[in-house]
């Protein structure tokens, strides 16, 4: 373990091109997919909690089911869709970072929506009452609701971010872990393990945690300011 920690720090300050490519692909995939999932999922969550329409309960149950989809199943689905013989082959998304992002968004959006719904269901009554008292339009009420749940938004985002970065099952299937193209930190750890290089794998794991720590500290500072 000590050796792996040492190597993680050596790696951090090294100029190993493959490593930095892995880190940059990881960050590109994680940030894009978590932001897209937030943009899609947060309004959905507000809709689930705030709007009243037939089939709402069923939608919430469906959403909760999707929250538990095993990543490999999602990966397999995307693999079949984007394959050379799949129905979406002309998009040419298989073995690309964009394909990985699509799979990630499919996985994380229900999680973001579900978390937002859970949080909002406790406070939505009050917000709705206030909005009615102020005679706010529907659109305004929607934005007020989002504005009132900033704290939950940040933590939901972080949760989605964590899921996106830690994901391995879906991205290895859709991305194919191709060096200098779609190899991310989790798939690289798998690859190094397969080569018997546990120390390097563990070092990458430490690096992954460090990045996550930095992002969380940043988010915490933001959250404190907005609280």
């Amino acid at each position, binding site marked *: 373990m000590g050796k792996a920690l040492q190597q993680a720090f050596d790696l951090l300050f090294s100029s190993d091109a493959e490593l930095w490519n892995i880190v940059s692909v990881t*960050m590109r995939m994680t940030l894009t997919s978590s932001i897209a999932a937030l943009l899609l999922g947060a309004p959905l969550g507000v809709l689930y909690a705030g709007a009243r329409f037939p089939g709402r309960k069923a939608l919430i149950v469906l959403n909760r089911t999707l929250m538990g989809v095993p990543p490999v199943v999602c990966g397999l689905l995307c693999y079949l869709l984007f*394959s050379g013989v*799949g129905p979406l082959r002309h998009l040419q998304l298989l*073995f690309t970072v964009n394909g990985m992002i699509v799979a990630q968004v499919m996985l994380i959006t229900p999680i973001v929506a579900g978390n937002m719904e859970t949080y909002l269901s406790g406070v939505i009554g009050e917000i709705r009452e206030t909005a009615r008292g102020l005679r706010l339009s529907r659109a305004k009420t929607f934005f007020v609701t989002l504005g009132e749940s900033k704290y939950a938004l940040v933590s939901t985002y972080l949760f989605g971010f964590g899921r996106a970065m830690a994901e391995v099952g879906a991205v290895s299937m859709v991305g194919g872990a191709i060096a200098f193209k779609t190899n991310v930190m989790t798939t690289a750890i798998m690859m190094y393990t397969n080569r*018997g290089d*546990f120390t390097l794998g563990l070092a990458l794991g430490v690096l992954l945690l460090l990045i996550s720590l930095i992002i969380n500290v940043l988010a915490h500072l933001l959250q404190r300011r907005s609280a």
Partner: protein
Amino acid sequence: MKKRILLIALALMLTLSVFGCAKTDTTAPEATAEVATEVMATEVPTEAPAITAEPNQEDGLGITILFEQDDSLINNYSLLAVNEAAPFVDADGKAVADVAINTVGAKALIDWMLGDEAATLIANYGVEQYGEALFYIKEDKPVSTAEIPQEIDETKTIRLSTTTSVNDSGLLAYLLPTFESEYGYTVEVASAGTGKAIAAAQMGNADLILVHSKSQEEAYVTAGFSKILDGYTSERLTFMYNFFVLIGPKDDPAKCAEATDVKDAFARIAEGKFPFVSRGDLSGTHTKEVSLWPESLAITTDAASVEAYSEWYAYSNAGMGVCLTMANEMNAYILSDKATFLAFRANGGTVG
């Protein structure tokens, strides 16, 4: 409110620019250059290499090579181009006609792999690091004299679906940069066991395959998924080989090292019910392994065929490295290609 949104946007853009966009463009060429210089360095024949990788009791591993160099342990690697007019079907079994296959790129890579330059590189691979070559060129391999075209936009990306052994042993990372820098192509390597590598090609996700299981290759050719390229006489272009080795605990309770041939060694393991780790993933190594057991056991690549032996036979469905780790932990016997084992051992094979 506006200020905060601005702040968040700024923070995101900062992170994005630091990690994302700025890096991607610059890293790849650097890396190619780096590897290319390495290749240049190894091309110069060095003096007789010091043999460092030979059985070394202090390597930290509990397992070692017990049996090798048996004729039935030869491990042949073949290149097969994917036929763009193959009978592709989608997941529902319906025919798909317009599958995009880069035949020109695949032929360029095959021509290069069968040429003299690649042969020299392959023969030298591993000599310095492991004290012996990891792969050997077949003397009767098909030879290519065709002129290799430079890439054009439509043929630039070549998708190579291959087995873990050539990738995990580092062979492709060592070979391909030379080809890429000379002819401008980008080779995208996806590696999995032979079974999965072939399945990927059948789903239109590869332009060529590099695999090592004769029976599976022949089935692939029979199904019409490969074709004979101009200047060759066969779909299966077998061009290099190495050896499978039987690996097991250093104290060798089954006395495999004293076996007369590899089948005898396998019979000894089965007889004593000593723990054995099988890849169980339809890889070339798995297909080879099931052919070595005594016929009376009726072991096939099907998991149901080993159900009765589950107390000593682990059908693991994992890559070579993971299985080697398992064997090391369980003090078990295992069949591996030699290249992966040597690389595994040199990389430490244990948590340092």
